[in-house]
Structure formats: structure tokens, C-alpha cells
């Protein structure tokens, strides 16, 4: 049984329909990438999974249970969390407080404050600083660490490369295998196709709210991905 199953998910913003029956599945310990151009529905998909956008119960199943329409705090308590697009750290909290608040629910698991600081050593010396004083890359590390602190079984990452220098993006993506190795399944949503392919075992390509292409990341040809991404 898959850890996460999304079945014919639809999503709306008022009259505007953002997702038209998206189906996707993620196995325990798997790294899945979702790529697509701006407005393809990638963020909407993640927000629906984590309960920020309402969905019918059966459209989203986690560990066998229907979680569509469940409130975010309850979903996080069950072991799904998200690194939001644009990082969205708590600006009035220090780096350490941002990490600690992620662990506030007290879910047991491999991730502790110390282990997160080991994963991102440059945060250790800045733990007392205001989160806003960090560089973009460091802020992204805090955002990922904050999500890990809840010891999720499934971690959703929304455009963690956005607005960062390529060298920083590489540094952050290097950490993903370590996270997966701890038994956490990861879904990365990306516009950066190369990073997405390298970081995943399985890939979905969204376009205008539909899955146009899916398959094992190694098996997909560049041409097929290009066609699905740009719709040519």
C-alpha cells in the first residue's frame, strides 16, 4: 500500500479550477518529483495534501486513511508536513525558535534539534539570531529543518530552489538523500527540471492542472519531459 495516494483530486479558487483530477502516489521512503511550469497546479496540489485547501475526504489518503478536508494541524500530527514556497519563516522568532516550534507537537522520530543542526551546521552558530537576518539559502535550511522537526513520514517541498543561487540550490539538494535515508518520503515540487530529475526516483509532470507525464525518473526521455512541460 502506498503511503500517500491522491485520487482524481480537483481544486478550485472560487470559480477558477486549478486541478482537474490529479492522481499520484508516493511509497514509504520514496523521493518523488513534481515538475511543471508556473500555474500548472503544483503548489495547489501540495496545499491540498496538507489541508490548506479543502478536498473531498477520499481524494487524499495517507497511510490508508482518508485525510481530504482534515485541518492542517491534524494532518501534521499524522506525519505529513510541508516546506512552504517562499520559506515563510516566523519573522519574530529566532532561528532556534523557528526550529523548536516545528517540533512542538512532539512526534517521535529521528529528527531532533541537534540532528537538524548537524544536517545544516551553519545554522548552529546562528541559532540565536533573528531568522530574517539570514541569507536566502540559510533561511531555506531553517524552513526545511523546521519541517523535519515534526518528524514527518512524508515531507512536501514547495520550490525550495526558488530565488537561490545555483551553488546554494545544489547544497540544499545534497541534503535530500540524507532525509530520505532516515525513512522519510519526500515530494519535491520544482521548476528546475534538472534538479528534480536528479533528486527523485519517480517523476510527475503537471500542466494546467493535469498529469501529462509520469514515470521512473531515469526512464523518461528529455524530449518527453520537454513536451509535457511546455505542452508543445
Amino acid at each position, binding site marked *: 500500500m502506498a503511503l500517500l495516494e491522491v485520487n482524481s483530486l480537483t481544486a478550485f479558487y472560487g470559480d477558477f479550477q486549478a486541478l482537474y483530477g490529479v492522481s499520484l502516489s508516493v511509497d514509504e521512503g520514496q523521493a518523488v518529483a513534481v515538475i511543471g511550469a508556473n500555474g500548472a497546479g503544483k503548489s495547489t496540489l501540495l496545499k491540498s495534501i496538507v489541508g490548506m485547501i479543502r478536498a473531498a475526504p477520499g481524494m487524499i489518503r495517507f497511510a490508508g486513511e482518508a485525510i481530504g478536508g482534515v485541518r492542517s*494541524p491534524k494532518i501534521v500530527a499524522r506525519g505529513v508536513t*510541508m516546506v512552504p514556497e517562499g520559506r515563510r519563516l*516566523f519573522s*519574530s522568532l529566532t532561528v532556534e*525558535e523557528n526550529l523548536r516550534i516545528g517540533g*512542538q*507537537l512532539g512526534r517521535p522520530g529521528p529528527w531532533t534539534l541537534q540532528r537538524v543542526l548537524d544536517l545544516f551546521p551553519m545554522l548552529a552558530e546562528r541559532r540565536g539570531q533573528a531568522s530574517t537576518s539570514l541569507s536566502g539559502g540559510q533561511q531555506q535550511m531553517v524552513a526545511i529543518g523546521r519541517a523535519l522537526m*515534526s518528524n514527518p513520514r512524508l515531507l512536501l517541498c514547495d520550490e525550495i530552489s526558488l530565488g537561490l543561487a545555483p551553488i546554494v540550490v545544489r547544497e540544499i539538494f545534497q541534503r535530500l538523500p540524507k532525509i530520505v535515508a532516515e525513512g522519510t518520503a519526500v515530494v519535491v515540487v520544482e521548476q528546475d527540471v534538472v534538479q528534480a530529475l536528479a533528486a527523485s526516483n519517480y517523476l510527475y509532470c503537471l500542466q494546467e492542472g493535469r498529469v501529462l507525464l509520469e514515470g521512473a525518473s531515469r526512464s523518461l526521455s528529455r524530449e518527453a519531459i520537454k513536451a509535457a512541460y511546455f505542452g508543445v
Partner: protein
Amino acid sequence: MELIHVIIQGVLLGGLYALFAAGLSLIFGVMRLVNIAHGDLIVVAAYMAYFTMQALGVGPFMSLIVVVPGIAVFGYALQRGLLNFALGDELPPLLVTFGLSVIIQNVLLILFTHDSRRLYAGPIEMASWKFTPDLSVGVLPVIQFAVAVAVIGGLQLLFYRTTLGRSFRATSDDPEIAQLMGIENRHIFALAMALSLAVVAVAGVFIAIRTTFNPFYGPQLLIFGFEAVIMGGLGSLWGTLAGGVLLGLAQAIGGQINVGLPFTAGHVAFLLVLIVRPQGLFPKVSV
């Protein structure tokens, strides 16, 4: 010597205003709710104290043991049952709390008539310390100021040293993402309202010892609270204390110049601060 006396009176009174303001700025900070009914809820606390004193035969300070938890529970229920549904935009909370203000005033009028009441604290009201033959300071205002400083210090500790305070600040920063930390906004907002009312209940009892109150006394208290918040600067608890003290000072000095002048002097001081330093004395959040 007269001037020193006036200044001391003003500063001590300012502690009360700081408490009104702390309650107001707490809920604005956590959920961006401007509570127009704030003053009326202070008056509700005063009535609760009045009837608790009658029922139990205790003094006003002892009545706080009942009034503080009582009004906190009321605040929690009010937030969960009504105000949470008004959040999200700027206008609805204003309209709903304005309506609430009218309702509270009229319910109080029906229940308790327009009679003015006061809380009697006994001989302590008259007690004073004499420093020099010319200069004496009332015991009650000193207690009142000390309590205000202690409450604001306690709030500061709560906000920056506890898990609950961290949840308050996180929710204030980004309520949507706070939910991903497992924080239930509905619950946190209700706790903030409960805390706000618990704080103003203390202030409400002190003000009701100082002056008489009736069902329509709330809006005036609301103005004092607003003025202290704005003068102190939004988001800073110690700034709120400074704002309250400044307002108290202005009123005391105004009252010294002319008996009819204290409130006008307070408003003038408020306008002056707005002109010279619109962000307040110790701003923390930019709104």
C-alpha cells in the same frame, strides 16, 4: 512640590491605562482584531467584581480570584463562538465588536440600571505614605502601579519564554504556516482573548475603585486604551507601559491647570505624539 505630586499621580495612574492598552494590543498583535468592545468588557469585569463582592462578602482584590478566571472563560467562549468567524478582513471585526459594544451596554442597562456604582476597598483607599510634610503618596495608586508593572512583566515573560508565547508570536507572524506547526489558530485566538480579558479585569477592578462606573462607561476606557497603545507603539509591551504613563501624566497635568481639562490634555498629548512620532515611542511592528 505641587508639581512633583502631580507627576507622581500621573505616572501611577498611567499603569492602569497601560493595562487597558496591553489587553488591546495583545489581541491586535495575535489576530489583527481591533476590539471596539474592549472598554465595555472592562466594565463587565467591574460589574462581575461588584456582585462577587456582594455575594461572597469579600473585598475587591479578593474578588479577582473569581473575576479573572470568570472573564477569561467568557473571553474564550466569545472568541470561539463569535469573533473567530469575523476574522480575516479588516472591516468585519470592527463591525462585529462595535455591535457587541452596543449589546453589552444595553444588557448591562437592563440588568443593572443606569445607577453609578463603585467598588469599596476600605481604609486602604485613604492610606498614604508621607515623605515630607508637603509630599504624600497614596498606598492604593502605588499598589495599582506595581501590579501593572508586574502584569506587563509577566506578559513579557509569557511571550518570550514559554511555548504558548512562541505560538502567539508565530500565529501573529503567519497564521497559515503556524497551522503547519500543529497550532490550532481557533484555539490560540481564543486563548489570546482569554488572556487579554484576564489582564483588563485586573485594571477594571482598580479603575472601579478609583471612580464610579455605569453601563456606558466603556467607550471612554476604550479611548484611553487606544491612546496608550498608539503612543507607546504597537507590539511592544514596555512601550505600552510608557504610553500609559505618558497619558496618565498628561491627564494629571491637565487636571492641575484646570479641573475640566484632564481628558482634553490626554487627547492633546496623544495628537502631539501622533504628529511628532506617528509610529509611537517604541514601535516593534510596522503595520
